[in-house]
């Protein structure tokens, strides 16, 4: 018997199995629904970003028009920063929903601005998302279980097994075409809608290939696991199904939650609230210090302005922006620790991923879609750099004490955010 002949046989066999077709169709529709929802989510984000840029430009022009001094302009004028969704974000929304995708930044201390978040409906966040990565991580294994749990035992229970092993020239030719066909069916059902989405989003071919391979790997892993259980001769179909679903429950629900519990108790680390508190103390404390102390601290990190005219007892904008910066510098170490503790949790999550394919596949997808923690921290870095551009743009007029004029203000050009 030729392989092509066996494949054709199996194809006819599969196309006559209504139950198998029904599950494959279910997977296809679930995948299509998740891709549609994902596409509409990123479309909505892009629309909000476009709207933000437009309204922010108007608001900035208005505020600049009202300015009567440079310090006041820097205080009142916000600058938009945004985290554009990648062309694969529709497949794995990841951590984007709890993290801000848009911010408005001004020249004040960044630590007081960067932790503000979008208001998220917590009950919706708790229910979780129905995105493509969910379909792959949760549903795909169950479909695989359904298609494979009685692959061998049904033949045995119906008494055909012996006949089949005798008539097929080799065991490989008997089972492999059947398995290959079903695996291809699962992959096509899951990936077709995703590929269509990727075409619409014009995603990069490399990333799409990487994501498709990840999905294929996940599918093969589960096929191997289920076939391993299914090939135990002592087990009946029901027991194989129960054991496979038990594995799914353990690997998809129990291990990740246990991992989460372990991580949260082992990495307490720096608290975000602590950073905010320290920053506020430093910024507000400056009012009670002699102004020269703040200025000296500022000049230590910004020696290029050290020859600026000394400040007296009275209020001065350059002192105001100096203590904002000194506040950031005071909290900088703590902010780094806070970040480090999030990265430490992420490293531990990677170890949990070794024990749970669901975690592993979601991590891989979020990484390819740039919706993971790292991508979010990269955005945070960009915002910090942009903040530096903004504050430094005002330093020449503030520290050289240039007299205010609208013409001079118009010369302070702050480039638009580019992420």
């Amino acid at each position, binding site marked *: 018997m030729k392989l092509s002949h066996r494949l054709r046989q199996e194809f006819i066999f599969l196309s006559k199995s209504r139950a198998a077709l029904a599950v494959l169709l279910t997977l296809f529709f679930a995948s299509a629904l998740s891709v549609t929802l994902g596409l509409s989510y990123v479309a909505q984000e892009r629309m*909000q970003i476009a709207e933000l840029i437009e309204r922010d430009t108007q608001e900035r022009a208005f505020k600049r028009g009202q300015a009567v001094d440079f310090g006041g302009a820097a205080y009142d004028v916000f600058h938009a920063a945004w985290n554009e969704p990648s062309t694969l974000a529709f497949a794995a929304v990841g951590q984007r929903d709890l993290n801000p995708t848009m911010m408005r930044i001004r020249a004040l201390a960044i630590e007081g601005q960067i932790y503000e978040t979008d208001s998220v409906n917590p009950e919706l966040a*708790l229910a979780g998302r129905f995105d493509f990565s969910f379909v792959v991580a949760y549903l795909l294994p169950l479909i695989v279980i359904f298609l494979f749990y009685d692959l061998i035992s049904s033949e045995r229970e119906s008494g055909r097994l012996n006949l089949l092993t005798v008539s097929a020239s080799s065991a490989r030719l008997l089972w492999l075409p059947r398995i290959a066909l079903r695996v291809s069916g699962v992959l096509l059902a899951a990936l077709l809608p995703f590929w269509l989405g990727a075409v619409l989003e014009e995603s990069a071919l490399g990333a799409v290939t990487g994501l498709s391979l990840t999905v294929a790997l996940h599918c093969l892993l589960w096929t191997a696991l289920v076939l391993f259980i299914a090939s135990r001769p002592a087990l009946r179909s029901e027991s194989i199904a129960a054991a496979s679903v038990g594995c799914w429950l353990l690997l998809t629900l129990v291990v990740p939650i246990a991992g989460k519990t372990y991580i949260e108790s082992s990495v307490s680390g720096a608290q975000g609230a602590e950073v905010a508190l320290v920053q506020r103390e430093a910024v507000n404390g400056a009012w009670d210090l002699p102004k020269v102390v703040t200025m000296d601290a500022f000049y230590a990190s910004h020696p290029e302005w050290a020859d600026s005219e000394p400040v007296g007892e009275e209020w001065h904008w350059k002192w105001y922006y100096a203590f904002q910066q000194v506040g950031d510098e005071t909290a900088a170490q703590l902010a780094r620790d806070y970040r480090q503790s999030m990265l430490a949790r992420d490293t531990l999550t990677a170890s949990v991923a070794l024990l749970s394919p669901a975690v592993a596949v979601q991590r891989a997808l979020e990484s390819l879609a740039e919706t993971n923690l790292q991508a979010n921290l990269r955005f945070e870095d960009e915002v910090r750099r942009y903040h530096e551009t903004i504050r430094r743009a005002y330093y020449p007029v503030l520290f050289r004490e240039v007299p205010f004029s609208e013409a001079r203000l118009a010369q302070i050009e702050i480039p638009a955010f580019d992420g």
Partner: protein
Amino acid sequence: MNKVLRITKDEIRYWRRSQLAWLVLLVLLATSVVAATVSNFESEGRAEQRSLQQAEADAIFQAQPDRHPHRMVHYGHYVYRPASPLAAIDPGIDSMVGTSIFLEGHRRNSATFAAAKETGLLARFGSFSPAFVLQTIMPLLLIVCGFSALTREKESRTLYQLIGHGVSGRTIVLGKFIALSGLGVVALLPLLVLGLIARDSSQFAALPSLLALGAGYLVYLAVWAALTVGVSALLRSSALSLSVLLAVWLVAVVITPRVASEVALVAVPPPSKVETDLAIAETLRAGGDSHDVEDAAFNDLRSVTLAEYDVESIEELPFNYRGLVALRGEEADTKVLNDLAEAQFEQELAQKKLLEGFSVLSPVIALRSFSMSLAGTALQDHHHFLRSAEDYRFDMVQTFNRLQMSQMSLAEDLARNDSEAAAQRTRVSADTWQEMPVFELQPLTFAERFAAAAGVAVTLLLWLLASASLLLFSTRRLLS
């Protein structure tokens, strides 16, 4: 009734004989104990951490030196969201929402530093708690124990013997249902234990909440027991019964809540924070800058005040007019901010309503909402915290503004930057900060929480009715 109980006993005997039942009991025991212990440990830890943070923030606030009151308006204060006494049973939204808010003048800041954001990916898989075990795992265990309750008897033809002996179909089905529900009752024990050791307050009323929670979970598990036995009575083979029940579990527990959440997001799209901020900026602009007494927005206030005190200029007023402008400005700003915040709460509640609408497709949606509401870890509890924090902020800021009004003259206030001595004249004694009340969140009362859960409680009862009908229907079709 005796016959029914005999069937129940037989079913339990069957579980004891088959290894599967031991496995199920072991899993139930292990998950319940681990979940209860871990959840209690975690929620105690959170509660302790936040009360420590609150104490630290209070201490720092009270230790502030003599200050100009408006400095205190900008200095602000931090408040932390206390954990609910029953969060150990159902942590609900706790990890999804920010834990602290910075309170200051002119602004209404968001609650920041949500635990889920810090933990990342794994937080999305849920957390170990009795609620998780009862909502997600327990239905599965009921299915595993009960899928073959009647198909088994059909396959081995013992069902026909029983009926031949004059036992009615109804008796058999009811007996099996009672056995399975009994398993559900056992699963409720950890809930009771945790509830009894919870830190209670008369306002919160943990005991009635606990009773209501227990009743809700009992109804939920009875629904699953009835569905399981009903399906087993309707179908011919155990394999088919297991597949159907697993599919039902998957759709009801894993898929539907997520689809519902997405639908709610699409149907009621939330505005982004930036959008809200811009809207606020535009509205507040009309209200004027309350730091500037010359701002045209306060012209009316000036003429009215001057007329009321029958004086010619603001310098002649018996109080510091700048304080009054700050007071009225804050009042107007707060009204704008509150209206926007309330509109946002409304919108979130509309999303929640939509989500709850899907509970006709999945009992777990009804139960989750019911459970969070009674445990004090639902959306409305978070809104309550935000409102309370806002009230506290407003009172605090207005206290400072009144101090600015009464403790210095306008001339002194305007001259405060001239010299150290002039600045000293505008400072208010540090004792004032120590005497200000600290933030104490009064949780929603039992009645309020129960009222929020009433809608889904009805849905849950409808589910009980529907599954009971299925059970009755299946007894009639038992032999066909």
